[in-house]
């Protein structure tokens, strides 16, 4: 018998700190598999965010940097400019990338910085126990929107792919999800494509991945995936928003 599914080489063979059923784990696996498949483990440098994925530096077997909250794209820029032949990716949550790190991601994209951003949108601040994120849905209850996110006070969730796609330096921008097997497979393809764009030197690439936070959503992992599909997908339509090779 042959192993047809096993632990990716680029992922450390240790237990993660993620909550049960948190799809951060799936996304880690996809990124690691991609690195394995492209054979770039030895020249990949990952930038971990501040957020639940902060410990990503322990999980990916490639060289890693832990960046200040929101600054991963700037840190990645510094790295990439020093070693243009290396492959540099950031792994960021929605608070990290779309709130405090807005300027950094917008300008990395505008510059056409040859890096790849893996953007995990779970509509909440997971790490700090569930406050509103820029991507929190209208009406969604969080620690800082105890009566539900209100348009009047908090405005609208940001659709990051749509925004980043307006920038000329963005070569590839896609939104995917991991709420079922089919979508996980699609997500993997998108991540791979984003890395390939970087390898080909085409510019900035980003994959936004809709993800769950069972702990702070207050749902079981299974229900969380359902909630994602029913509530997040309509607000954040899946698809390719930019592909300069298309």
């Amino acid at each position, binding site marked *: 018998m042959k192993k047809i599914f096993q632990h990716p080489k680029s992922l450390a063979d240790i237990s993660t700190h993620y909550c049960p059923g948190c799809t951060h784990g799936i996304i880690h696996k996809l990124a690691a598999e991609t690195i394995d498949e492209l054979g770039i*483990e*030895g*020249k*990949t*440098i990952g*930038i*971990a965010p501040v957020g639940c994925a*902060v*410990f990503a*530096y*322990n999980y*990916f*077997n*490639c*060289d*890693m*940097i*832990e*960046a*200040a909250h929101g*600054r991963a794209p*700037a*840190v*990645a*820029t*510094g*790295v*990439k*400019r*020093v*070693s243009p032949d*290396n492959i540099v990716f950031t792994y960021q949550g929605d608070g990290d990338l779309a709130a405090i790190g807005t*300027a*950094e991601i*917008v*300008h990395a994209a505008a510059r056409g910085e040859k890096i790849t951003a893996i953007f995990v949108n779970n509509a909440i601040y997971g790490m700090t126990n569930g406050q509103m994120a820029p991507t929190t849905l209208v009406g969604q209850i969080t620690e800082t929107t105890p009566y539900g996110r209100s348009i009047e006070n908090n405005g609208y969730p940001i659709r990051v792919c749509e925004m980043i796609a307006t920038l000329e330096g963005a070569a590839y921008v896609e939104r995917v999800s991991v709420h079922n097997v089919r979508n996980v497979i699609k997500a993997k393809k998108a991540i791979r494509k984003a890395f390939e764009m970087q390898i080909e030197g085409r510019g900035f690439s980003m994959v936004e991945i809709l993800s769950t936070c069972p702990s702070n959503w207050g749902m079981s992992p299974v229900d969380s995936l359902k909630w994602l599909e029913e509530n997040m997908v309509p607000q954040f339509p899946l698809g390719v928003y930019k592909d300069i090779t298309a």
Partner: protein
Amino acid sequence: MSRKVLMKGNEAIAEAALQAGCRHYFGYPITPQTEIAAYMAGKMPEVGGVFLQAESEISAVNMVYGAASAGARTMTSSSSPGISLKQEGLSYIAGCELPCVIVNVMRGGPGLGGILPSQSDYFQSVKGGGHGDYRMIVFAPSSVQEMYDLTYEAFELADLYRIAVMILADGHLGQVMEPMEIRVPESRQLEPKDWAVTGTRCKRPHNVINSLLIVGEELERHNNKLQAKYTKISENEARYELTNCEEADVIIAAYGSVARIAKEVVRECADEGIKVGLFRPVTLWPFPSTALNQLAEKLKGLVVVEMSAGQMIEDVKLSVEGKCPVYFHGRTGGMVPLKNDITELVRKVLQQRSQI
């Protein structure tokens, strides 16, 4: 190699960085230090380096964080408000022990303040404007030549100790043009940066640049290690310059461009037979406390002169431990201490030992 050239202080910093092998500069424009970026923008492409104008000071310092993580000699520069924005980044750099050079060409504050020269970021630079227990080596040049020499040295010490080194200058030093020599000191034997994230090439375990230590015991251990390093630097790297201090009754303590005014005072006083010396710290951290403490013994008083409301004076007082009285003359907002005012204060101190 030793022909003199006329250069602005800001340009001297940039040239020194290039000579020291800095090939990655990240910055954001702000007066009075824009010449550093302009110089880099012109020269970097010629030497195959990277000049990148970041979208903000915060991005710039985090690009430096990235470039230093990747093992490069790297630098950013700014002026007071811009440096305030870098404080989180500087604390991270300290936590991760990343070598790099930060330039602050100070202007008047607080807030938007003004663009004239100032020395009112002493506390921020020396005590730590960011969070946590950390230090940077802080150089205080006082001439264009020193802008050059100390910047070069900054890159060396940064690598030697894995620490951020700040060049703390002021608007006058940045803008003034003086003859100087472009010189390359003998290089130190430095350890290879085998901690850097250069890609494992599948030949070594992965390197991690990180300042998060979630377990108290581990974070304390890390802090102890940092403190031990700081102690070592304090012992080895304190630098200062003395003028006419041997016989002095009063010593003026001043740094940077103010020290030059003070030196004129010292010279003129000598002409008049008044025994006044100058203590000029070249490193503000580590502050040359031991040297100053020894000098204090036989003094009628120490006169601290700053372009601030009184910041270095605290380190002076901590150094002298009450051995002699300490007096202060400060100007703010871009105003420059006048020779006459300093001399007058010196005379007063000589006349009466009591607190003024």
